[in-house]
């Protein structure tokens, strides 16, 4: 068949197809009834025309035009749309804690990398107070001192609600960005995640140690105990997700490194979803609860303890089924 004949015969068909694809490509475009039902079969015919045109060496203009329609039709046919809310709820209730238990090897490593250096730094500073300047600049140290000085009541009751909103915004943008970086840099064979975990641990230990030396323990620990539950756990999980990427590159097993990285990433990104949610909660607690000075310290310790139990209990128990399958991690 000559190209001209071919075009004349089938042009109407692929013209209809093109209009449908253009409709589907609109942000809220959709097809109705019959058109939708026969889209797949018409798409297969389009593929057939494209293959024929190529095989018969028709002009590249025609082949390219059909090829373009095939690519765009493919995009529309294989588009995935799922009910967002339902997925979201089931992820929070079961999916995320299950995933954390499944990946607990990485979680434990990340936890150790954050807390062990932190604890060592804390003890070291109790013994040698000047060591605090090895990880932070003197200006930063004095700003921490003034923040938690019991004499200095800037932190708390005097603070108005609009300041709380401002701090909420700051915590969201700062903490989640830190978590994202901790995760992303794990792709460099895990080195980045390890660095960020250890560095944050050291910083945390240094500040805690220094403020203990300065005898601001009450203000400091009652401030951090509440949101720490969500925040520190989320950082550990973000680091664990990064370590998973790095490990997939270092020890790909029977897969190629590329394939191994791809599979690990699909799991790791789901951990990151959970991290985002946890950090939003943490920022909320930090801005509106932790900073409130009207509350007595014992109230804060009580609620803080409850929050820690909640986070750990959630990650350990949520999503286990009664008969025990699917949940054992």
């Amino acid at each position, binding site marked *: 068949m000559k190209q001209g004949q071919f075009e004349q015969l089938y042009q109407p068909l692929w013209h209809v197809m093109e209009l449908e694809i253009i409709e589907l490509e609109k942000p809220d475009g959709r097809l109705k009834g019959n058109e939708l039902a026969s889209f797949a079969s018409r798409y297969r015919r389009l593929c057939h025309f494209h293959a024929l045109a190529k095989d018969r060496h028709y*002009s590249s*203009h025609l082949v*390219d*035009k059909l090829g373009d329609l095939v690519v765009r039709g*493919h995009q529309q046919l294989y588009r995935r749309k799922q009910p967002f809310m339902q997925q979201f709820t089931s992820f929070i209730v079961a999916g995320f804690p299950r995933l954390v238990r499944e990946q607990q090897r990485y979680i434990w490593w990340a936890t150790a990398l954050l807390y062990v250096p932190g604890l060592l730094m804390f003890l070291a500073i109790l013994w040698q107070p000047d060591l605090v300047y090895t990880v932070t600049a003197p200006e930063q140290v004095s700003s921490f001192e003034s923040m938690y000085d019991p004499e200095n009541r800037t932190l708390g009751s005097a603070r108005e609600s609009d300041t709380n909103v*401002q701090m909420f915004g700051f915590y*969201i943008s700062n903490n989640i960005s830190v978590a994202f970086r901790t995760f992303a840099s794990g792709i460099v064979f895990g080195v980045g995640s390890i660095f960020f975990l250890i560095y944050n641990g050291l910083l945390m230990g240094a500040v805690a140690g220094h403020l203990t030396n300065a005898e601001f323990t009450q203000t400091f620990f009652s401030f951090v105990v509440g949101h720490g539950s969500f925040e520190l756990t989320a950082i550990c999980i973000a680091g664990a997700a990064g370590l998973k*990427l790095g490990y997939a590159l270092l020890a790909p097993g029977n897969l190629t490194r590329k394939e191994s990285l*791809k599979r690990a990433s699909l799991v790791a*990104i789901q951990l990151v979803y959970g991290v985002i949610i946890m950090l939003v909660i943490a920022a909320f607690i930090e801005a509106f609860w932790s900073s409130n000075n009207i509350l007595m310290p014992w109230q804060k310790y009580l609620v803080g303890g409850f929050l820690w139990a909640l986070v750990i209990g959630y990650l350990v128990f949520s999503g286990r089924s009664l008969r025990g399958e699917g949940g054992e991690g």
Partner: protein
Amino acid sequence: MLLDTRQSLETPEGALLPLTPAGFGVRVLAQLLDILIRYGIVTVIFIVLSLLGRMGTGIALILAFLLEWFYPVYFEVSRQGRTPGKKWMGIRVVNDDGTPITFGPSLLRNLLRFVDFLPMLYLTGIIASLCNRQFKRLGDLAAGSMVIYEAPPTREPSFEVRGQLPVPADFSTDEQRALLAFAERSKYLSAERQSELATILLPVIGSKDPVIAIKQMANTMVGKQ
């Protein structure tokens, strides 16, 4: 034989999807445009919301955070893989099996943008993209995504010549394709360049005006009058 970067992907229908991966040059330009747009919006947000005092600053910080990390994700997922910058440059993101990009891979590749940027100006990403045939940066490798060119809209070619001439029987398929391609591309070539190219075939075709002869042969192949 094609000396280009085009890749073919086989779909479940057995069709071969022709995809052309986009290199870092055009992607850097698209990213620059996106950065300009984003910073423009952030500046406006801070100016307007700072009128609301500290509460405004808080909201502005959240919005700036969302724009920094989720601006590309939002557009890639809801606008067929095109951020405004990419749309401008005529490129888009797809999964590397040719299907539209979904939320997970899109978030992944945009979070890993942080590493691709290191140590400065996307050096890691550029080096990574030069090491594989789909020009994938690290984020694309992990997410299983790739950036491709949109096919430009094509217009019906006209050979501007009527009449037909038989194609010499000993022309191979590739040689016939070359004649056809010449006829199709002729409107992008000056008359002088056309005749310069066509004259190469003079000994084979043996016609007085090889340009017209080739176009008439193309007419024969396509089946036009």
